[in-house]
């Protein structure tokens, strides 16, 4: 980094300093002339015994105001001019011995005071410089704090940097269409295409792979320094500084200031990132609330009419005129059954939405796994009517630690899936066994079975096996939902098959309670 800034500061022309020095000598000379004029005036009024004291004044003033050089100059000039006041008056040609004494004394005074003043002035200048820098940094900081978007931060960095380096600098960013462009408003110097290409490659690579600054030498003899600017970890922009041909070492203060501008810029970009994150989080929370309201209202809006249809059909099915005609009764019962099916579809879609939005919060409690299995079998009874259910339940199952309602829904989906994809009259096997740390519930059907590759695919959303395509309809969401619900409870779900035509088995494992109560009935 320091090398970079050393490069940047090389070649700041010292002409203005030389000019300033000359002015100081002229000033010292003027003071001596003033002292001479004063001496002449005094001499005209009254004879002067010693003019040396008079010429001490310009020496002292020059030493204080202009430094050692001009003071020595004033001492020499004063010694010369003092000749005017020694007899013969107003002649510089005769040198008196006293003049030597005067010269030596005033030179000593010039050197001493000059040195002292120089030190004091150096300290004062340093203090002033520090103050200026602090004020500048403060201004930069408050500008940055007020900046509300990345572009205005880039612009501020460019402006302040331009001011600090006293040259035009440019900030390049990747535009919306991927093209590299100069941040508008910055006082950009003209830049060749080769520079843009180099910046493009710099922006494309991650910060870890490249140096923070790079020097680019163009064939035309131009030289640029490129410096990354951006949030931690990724550069969003590149600061380009044209390097002058002439060279001079930059002062440490300037290097520090330029670096602090860059750091301030990067920090502000970080802060902006954080602000953005907070904004996004708030937005997300708001979205969550809206989504909950929406889910609630969709749920209500869709399911209320379904409840109306289903209930009405159910009443019709109990009415005497319909009971008298089996065909009509069948229709009424059909409406009721279809309405229930529609409701389940809606529920599935709502579940998927809930899962997607992360609104699924299992309420874990100690549950008898058989309660879940029985409940699911009861709930799916209508759809299992054409199948034989073969249950195989191990004795002494442990309690599981799950959200019973979610696991029940997963199991219902498994049972429906088994019923849907296996021929009527075939058996659906439901087995419940203890495992090392919980319970395994398996649902096996005598359906088309699965290829090796399908055992994973069937859990993908909207996936329905080709060999199943001609069979009963369905949204293809059932197993996806089952998987999410089971995994949300800390369980697993897996499909297996002996092969095509040999049926398939879906197995859920559920976590047991970490501490099973072994306490017996108090009175047994």
């Amino acid at each position, binding site marked *: 980094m320091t090398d970079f800034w050393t490069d940047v500061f090389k070649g700041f022309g010292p002409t203005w300093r030389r000019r300033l020095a000359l002015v100081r000598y002229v000033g010292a000379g003027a003071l001596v002339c003033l002292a001479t004029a004063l001496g002449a005036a005094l001499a005209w009024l009254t004879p002067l015994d010693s003019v040396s004291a008079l010429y001490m004044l310009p020496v002292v003033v020059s030493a204080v105001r202009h430094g050692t050089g001009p003071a020595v100059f004033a001492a020499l000039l004063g010694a010369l001019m003092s000749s005017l006041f020694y007899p013969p008056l107003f002649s510089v040609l005769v040198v008196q011995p006293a003049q030597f004494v005067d010269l030596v004394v005033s030179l000593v005074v010039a050197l001493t005071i000059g040195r002292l003043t120089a030190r004091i002035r150096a300290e004062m200048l340093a203090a002033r410089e520090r103050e200026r820098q602090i004020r500048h940094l403060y201004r930069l900081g408050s500008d940055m704090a007020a900046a509300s978007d990345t572009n205005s931060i880039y612009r501020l960095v460019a402006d302040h940097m331009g001011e600090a380096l006293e040259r035009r600098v440019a900030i390049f960013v990747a535009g919306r269409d991927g093209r590299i462009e100069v941040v508008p408003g910055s006082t950009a110097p003209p830049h060749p295409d080769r520079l843009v290409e180099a910046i493009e490659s710099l922006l494309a690579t991650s910060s870890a792979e490249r140096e923070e600054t790079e020097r680019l030498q163009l064939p035309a003899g131009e030289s640029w320094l490129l410096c990354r600017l951006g949030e931690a970890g990724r550069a969003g922009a590149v600061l380009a500084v044209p390097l002058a041909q002439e060279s001079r070492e930059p002062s440490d203060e300037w290097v520090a200031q330029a670096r602090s501008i860059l750091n301030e810029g990067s920090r502000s970009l970080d802060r902006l990132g954080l602000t953005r994150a907070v904004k996004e989080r708030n937005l997300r929370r708001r979205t969550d609330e809206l989504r909950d309201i929406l889910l609630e209202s969709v749920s209500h809006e869709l399911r209320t009419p379904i409840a*109306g249809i289903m209930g*009405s059909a*159910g*009443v019709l099915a109990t009415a005497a005129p319909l009971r008298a005609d089996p065909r009509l009764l069948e229709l009424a019962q059909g409406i009721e059954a279809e309405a229930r099916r529609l409701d389940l579809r809606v529920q599935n879609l709502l579940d998927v939405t809930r899962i997607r939005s992360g609104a699924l919060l299992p309420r874990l409690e100690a549950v*008898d796994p058989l*309660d879940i299995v029985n409940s699911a079998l009861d709930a799916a*009874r209508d759809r299992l009517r054409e199948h034989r259910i*073969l249950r195989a339940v191990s004795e002494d199952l442990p*309690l599981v630690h799950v959200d019973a309602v979610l696991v029940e829904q997963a199991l219902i989906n498994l049972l429906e899936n088994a019923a849907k994809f296996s021929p009527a009259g075939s058996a659906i096997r439901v087995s419940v066994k203890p495992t090392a740390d919980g319970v395994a519930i398996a649902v096996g059907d005598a359906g088309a079975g699965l290829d090796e590759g399908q055992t994973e695919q069937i859990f993908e959303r909207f996936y329905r096996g080709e060999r199943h395509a001609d069979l009963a309809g369905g949204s293809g969401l059932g197993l996806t939902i089952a998987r999410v619900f089971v995994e949300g409870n800390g369980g697993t779900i897996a499909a297996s098959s002996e092969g095509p035509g040999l049926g398939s088995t879906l197995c859920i494992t559920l976590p047991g309670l970490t501490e099973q109560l072994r306490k017996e009935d108090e009175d047994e």
Partner: protein
Amino acid sequence: MSERTGSSTLEALVVDDEPQIRRFLKTGLDLQGFRVTEARTAREAIDAAVMRAPDLVILDLGLPDADGATVLAELRSWSQVPVIVLSVRNTEAEKVALLEAGADDYVVKPFGMAELLARVGVVLRRSVSRASSSPLLRVGGLVIDLARRLVNRDGAVVSLSSKQFALLRVLATHQGMVLTHRQLMKELWPQDPDQDVQYLRILMKKLRNRLEPDPSRPIYLVTELAVGYRLHTQEQFEAGGYAEAMA
């Protein structure tokens, strides 16, 4: 309500803001011989309950002017009228809260009329027999003599521990109705009703082992998932249709 005579028609109050749901409930209950009053809001519901003194209230939870739970609380402050709540799925916590606040039962929307009528039958019979509760209960092959503390399964006497009998007794005195886990724990462990629900589950498992023909597929002592337990009535037992092949 106990002074009601067999010949008078029963009055049902249906509280729901959805016209189509009120319509089919009215017709369905009409067909069963109920006289039906309708209410669309919580305000109307309370007014009607005061004016008409219904024998049964069917209460939807989503009302435009107040929560159904508010209506229930107000009703319960002066009336023991049976209340069946219409709830939606995935609101187990709400169901539990309502049962504990005094609702007699619930059905989940959308529901079949037959399902609702079965629940209605249970809560009405219970409200009729509340005063003169028969100490002898029969469900399938199960005979429970609460007075003599005897349980008989398929003609054979079953011995139960006192805790097991206590659980059975609570369920039997509320036969046909769901009791929440907490309600049961309060009865069984009055000094410590907040202990782990595991104790109740284990106790229930043991009770089922004694009473159920197949404890892995209970037909008498059934689970209402995430809500509680229920001892079936004879009608519920028959309607349950546990006909699927078992192996």
